[in-house]
């Protein structure tokens, strides 16, 4: 059965800290791995990773994929209170409509 596991489930850090969120997966026919950020409403797209070892970066956020070990990490440096959200990892494993299998998410809280 295809499976995506995120850790930790929740995390509280102080503003300015660096955090690493983890996503491991067991899926057949892997195509890509996606990270989303969900605040109060719609999950918003952050990164899509398809190739192993290539870092994607956007400001203070970066992510990398290891297809051999079947995991990805999302790093956030110099965290701000606006980074508080649920971070979702999803894997696109097959099919014509790019079905996604989601992990349960990591709830990040950044405090002053």
């Amino acid at each position, binding site marked *: 059965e295809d499976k995506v596991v995120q850790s930790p489930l929740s995390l509280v850090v102080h503003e300015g800290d660096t955090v690493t969120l983890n996503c491991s997966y067991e899926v057949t026919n892997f195509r*890509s791995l996606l990270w989303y950020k969900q605040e109060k*409403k*719609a*999950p918003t797209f952050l990164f*899509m990773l398809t190739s192993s070892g290539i870092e994607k970066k956007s400001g203070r956020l970066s992510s990398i994929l290891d297809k051999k070990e079947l995991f990805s990490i999302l790093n956030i440096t110099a965290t701000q209170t606006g980074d508080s959200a649920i971070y*979702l990892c999803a894997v*696109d494993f097959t099919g014509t*409509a790019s079905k996604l299998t989601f992990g349960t998410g990591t709830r990040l809280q950044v405090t002053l």
Partner: protein
Amino acid sequence: DVKVTQSSRYLVKRTGEKVFLECVQDMDHENMFWYRQDPGLGLRLIYFSYDVKMKEKGDIPEGYSVSREKKERFSLILESASTNQTSMYLCASSPPSRGSVKKPQHFGDGTRLSIL
């Protein structure tokens, strides 16, 4: 920017009612999806559609049906609502992945549905 609009942010219905959740996207996307999101369980796929009048079951289709009569609109139907269908419902859309070109799904703001 892609806009996925769900008709209601909050909805309260009674057990046994037939409930319609509507989703409209403005980017001419072929693919549309319905998920439910529950604490500790993450997002789970209910149904998806990759073309008008086409639908496929996701991981938890029981108790639900869908309708896609027009490309931009994808409706989720709870045939006879039950309390265990109280949840946050999220709609998403995406263009098709063509070869190595992959595109992410874009989500609506969600409908928080309570069944009493």
